[in-house]
């Protein structure tokens, strides 16, 4: 009797044996120094889906790919069209978000995907088309400081965000300020961000009760604005690009990381998680300490992380 050869291992089995995080043995090794120490964002492409970016703003230091920018417009028959070419910022908000990302990851290349223009209608369809375009182009990080309440588009956004996850695009979105569903901030395939009370742009927190998963600086932030100027601005809109900028740094240093690994690195390097890990804790107390520290760091009550009685 001749033994049959063993069946070939499936591809996923072979691949799984060679995937390792270089230089990191366990979760406790995931420090800010490991994650982004020395990184500049070089080699990383970031899409900013917003009101446009003023590419020649002096604060942006030439980091914007003006020729590769796209603008989405909706034709009279209702079809969203992607138009390539330089454009300005219809408000200033996109320039502000790009400025935050550039300040954190100065060598990352930023591309504007303008979906907010002069017309007030048809924003969900423009937003969805712009997001789909950015995913098709394979951007490493996509910042979306906007959202839609339209539940009839929720499933379409869900599917497109899942495509981003499997195509290795890391999506960062601003959370809603109140407890009302806003898409795509409700999905597990994105990193949803609200404000914390920090003034240090690298000090961010993990929120143990999703859908909002991270808290970052978003209060009284000086940002570049339309017309070459600056404003001081507050809102979850400005928290999201802080996480996008840090994600760009991590991706430039560790391009092998998939979105779920990148989220894990963000979790491990969040201020409240690091501080809780350093504290002498009995087993099983880490999450409670993380929650307590998150409560003191949160800026917005819409981030309902825990009932006070649990602390």
């Amino acid at each position, binding site marked *: 009797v001749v033994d049959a050869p063993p069946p070939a291992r499936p591809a996923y089995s072979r691949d799984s044996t060679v995937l390792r995080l270089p230089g990191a043995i366990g979760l406790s090794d995931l420090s800010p120094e490991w994650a982004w120490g020395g990184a500049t964002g070089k080699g990383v492409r970031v899409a900013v889906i917003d*009101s446009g970016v003023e590419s020649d703003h002096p604060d942006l230091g030439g980091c914007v790919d003006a020729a590769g920018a796209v603008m989405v417009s*909706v034709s009279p028959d*209702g*079809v*969203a069209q992607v138009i390539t070419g330089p454009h300005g910022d*219809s*408000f200033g*908000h996109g320039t502000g978000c790009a400025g935050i990302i550039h300040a954190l990851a100065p060598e990352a290349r930023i591309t504007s995907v303008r979906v*907010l*223009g*002069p017309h*007030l*209608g048809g*924003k*969900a*369809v*423009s937003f*969805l*088309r712009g997001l*789909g375009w950015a995913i098709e182009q394979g951007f490493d990080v996509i910042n979306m*400081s*906007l*959202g*839609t*309440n*339209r*539940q*009839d588009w*929720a*499933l*379409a956004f869900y599917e497109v965000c899942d495509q981003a996850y499997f195509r290795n695009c890391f999506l960062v979105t*601003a*959370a*809603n*300020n*109140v*407890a*009302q*569903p806003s898409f795509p901030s*409700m999905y597990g395939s994105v990193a949803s961000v609200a*404000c914390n009370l920090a003034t240090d742009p690298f000090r961010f927190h993990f929120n143990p009760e999703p*859908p909002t998963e991270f808290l970052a600086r978003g*209060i*009284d932030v000086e940002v570049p*604005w*339309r*017309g070459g*100027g*600056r*404003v*001081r*601005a*507050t*809102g*979850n*809109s400005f928290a999201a690009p802080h996480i996008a900028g840090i994600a760009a740094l991590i991706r430039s240093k560790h391009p092998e990381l998939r979105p779920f690994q990148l989220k894990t690195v963000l979790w491990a390097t969040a201020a409240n998680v690091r501080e809780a890990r350093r504290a002498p804790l009995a087993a099983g107390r880490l999450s409670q300490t993380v929650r307590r520290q998150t409560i003191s760091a949160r800026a*917005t009550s*819409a*981030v*309902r992380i825990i009932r006070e009685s649990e602390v």
Partner: protein
Amino acid sequence: MNAALHALARAAVDVTGAGAGAVLAVAGDDLVVVAAAGDCAGLVGTTVAATGTSAAFVVSSGQPIAVSVRPEDPVTSAVAALLGRHPASVLCVPCATDEDPLGALELVDKAGGMFTVDDIELATVLAGIAGAALTERGQAAAPPAPPSWERPWPGWPAPTRSATRRWPRC
């Protein structure tokens, strides 16, 4: 209906310490002041071009925004443009519904500084009520709009309520 919107505008000015405030409703690609309080109370009925204003941005993006503005910065406030003066601070939140926002609640010139996150949350709650009032106002003024037929890509099926999932609240 406008009495309710006026009360909301007054409440928003009072609770945030703003100098003036208005509820602006979407009218095509423009915005119309439908209720006002503080030193812009006389602006009701005025139409303002939406382009480049904070009200237009929050209607489009669904995201509230608070900014402090220096005299040399561009004026982004629809209310301040109507008032003819440069605001020191602007807070604008969408009048959100389950559909696209129907308008915005805009406040200017907070006493003693910049609008805070607490102000944003208070204004957002009031703007949500204003959104419900604007929905009723629109339903009373016009027959229901036909279902939208927007398509992100050619051939994309029209969205239907049957495809809607129920999402948990934050």
